[in-house]
């Protein structure tokens, strides 16, 4: 029985004709649109702040890379930060996607049931670790180890352009920041892909196995195609998280106002979210504050687009109702 039944719908109509119900419905409806009001508020309030930025800098605010506020005229551009956010997210994804997929394959298809339940709990707990704690850990524990790895990478694979390092300084690199982002993305991507892989109909799995398929052919032709939409959606959700991540990146990335195009183990990079927090503490006045707010607006737009695409992909597959 559902409200689609005509009799029930009549019942509903009769019930909502009551005066108290109309008031109740109105209050609930207004509350339900709070999410829209907040999104619109963010777009309007932060959007208005882009006006002073564009008035003083023109389009170069988003196409150049500079931050000299106290010169006359001041120059400011966030291209390097926007690009840096994307670069860090890509580094994170390169690490997080294979790790999360393999982790969810292990949990769903390989691990004994009790181990799988324990792993699920641990990964969910990992998702709950606040980013400031990951930043603290990365600053003191990961940094020395990662410095060593990067030195080795540079020593043996330095002929590949992305592993170049001219300065000899291996701290504050996009690689470390991307690695921290990967640690934040792994639980998000894993929990979504684990759910969709676990929902692969057992008939299909048994059928393919009884036809003689190996683990690889089962994954390749049954489980992964079945869960593709959900997995891609989970990756996009992780990406949205990575683009907006602020504090953990703040501790491990050296912000420089030059575009670091591809040298991922060279000290210095950019990230819009981290720019905002790192400049906010020593903001020089109203003008610089409005520049930071404008940068926040572009960060908001970037993450909104990624999240909307992610949710459309997840909704289209319709298998993950979360």
């Amino acid at each position, binding site marked *: *029985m*559902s409200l689609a039944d005509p009799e029930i719908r009549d019942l*509903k109509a009769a*019930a*909502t004709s*009551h005066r*108290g*119900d109309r008031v*109740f*419905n109105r209050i*609930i*409806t207004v509350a*339900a649109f709070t*999410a829209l009001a*907040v*999104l619109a508020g*963010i777009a309007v*309030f*932060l959007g208005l702040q882009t006006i002073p930025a564009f008035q003083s800098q023109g389009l170069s605010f988003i196409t150049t890379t500079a931050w000299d506020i106290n010169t006359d005229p001041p120059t400011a551009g966030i291209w390097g930060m926007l690009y840096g956010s994307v670069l860090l997210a890509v580094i994170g994804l390169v690490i997080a996607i*294979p*790790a999360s997929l393999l*982790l969810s*394959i*292990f949990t769903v298809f*390989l*691990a004994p049931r009790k181990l799988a339940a324990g792993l699920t709990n641990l990964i969910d*707990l990992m998702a*709950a670790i*606040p*980013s*400031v*704690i990951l*930043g603290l850990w990365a*600053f*003191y524990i990961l940094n020395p*180890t990662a410095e060593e790895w990067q030195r*080795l990478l540079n020593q043996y694979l330095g002929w590949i352009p992305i592993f170049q390092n001219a300065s000899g300084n291996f701290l504050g690199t996009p690689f470390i920041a991307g690695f921290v982002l990967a*640690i934040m993305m*792994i639980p998000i991507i894993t929990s979504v892909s684990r759910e969709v892989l676990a929902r692969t109909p057992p008939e299909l799995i048994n059928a393919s*196995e*009884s036809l003689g398929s*190996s*683990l*690889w052919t089962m994954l390749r032709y049954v489980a992964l195609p079945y869960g593709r939409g959900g997995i891609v959606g989970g990756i996009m*959700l992780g990406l949205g998280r990575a683009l*907006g991540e*602020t*504090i953990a990146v703040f501790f491990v990335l050296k912000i420089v106002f030059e575009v670091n195009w591809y040298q991922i183990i060279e000290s210095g990079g950019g990230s819009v*979210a981290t720019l*905002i*927090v790192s400049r906010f503490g020593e903001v020089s006045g109203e003008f610089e*504050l409005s520049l*930071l707010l404008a940068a*926040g607006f572009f*960060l908001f737009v970037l993450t*909104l687009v990624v*999240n*909307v695409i*992610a*949710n459309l992909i997840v909704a289209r597959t319709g298998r993950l109702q979360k």
Partner: protein
Amino acid sequence: MTTTFDPSALPQLQQQRIERPWRRKPPIFTWSVVLATLIPLAIVGWIYWSTDIPGAIVMTVIYLPLQLIASGVAAFATRGRRGILDSVIIVNAIGATLFTLIVLLSVIGSLIARGITAISAHFIYQNNVYVSPSTPLEYGGIGHAILGTVIIVGISMLIAVPIGVATAIYITEVRGRAVPYVRFFVQAMAGVPSVVAGLFILTIIVATGAFQQGAFAGGLAYAILMLPTVARTAEEVLKLVPEDLRTGALALGSTRARTVLRVVLPAARTGIITAIILGVARVIGETAPLLLAAGSADATVVNPFGGPIAAIPTYIFNNVALPYPDAVARAWASALVLIVLVSILFVLARVIGRGRLSSK
């Protein structure tokens, strides 16, 4: 011989694992797995202890390929060519799982090992007023920050919980025409970066001047982050309330509003509590919004409108990179306090939600 159906044996039948003859493993399989695990470990152990090649190189350049080859040979011996790809997947899947667990253990382990030194009774209740970064650990604490976090999270709960539950009620009970749009906006809101939420509250402060940096502003920023979590979890929970309860209440002459308030919400009580806990766990460690909207303080502040206030995440943030060992020890200790709080919330949500959400 005829067999009759015996209903009392049904639970036992359901418990039985389905026979899958094609999954039976021959004994040679077990032996090849054991050998394929032990031989590479022995070789790598010998290389690691007898030479001075760094551990990271030994693991990635020597152990992983060696393990892949060994497992491949074992798989080939037992199952022929098609086994090789399977062994690659299995070795990599176990490797990825171990990698993630090592990272998690490293985070938790370092928090406990480094945080425990500064933990003491006075660390939990004293504030930071007469404490400079170089003050020894006998003095000062994060009592003011714990109180600040409680006040800020409390304010955000007062705002986000009613609105979040109302949003869920709109989706599952009122079922207006805008349901797909409301769900879409809630999901879009869930993706708002925390630093943007802080900036938004900051622009309101700058633009209107209605209030200043402090607990109320911080609570507003937290509420933006908490609302989608509460709304989405509450929606899941309300969906689990049987339709019969609603139609039953309506048939007894209850109004729609009374049905929701007196029947549906009480039926979903524990689930709603889970939703609130998950919302709190989502925001409690967020730092960026508080840096922007709440500021920081050394003294204990209780007035939500009384100016900048301390909280645990901002306290950690301010102490992490200071060149004083005692300040850093305080940061680790408050991170330990924070992760303990998060874990308590996490376990609470699991325990309360178990009966109701597991049927999902």
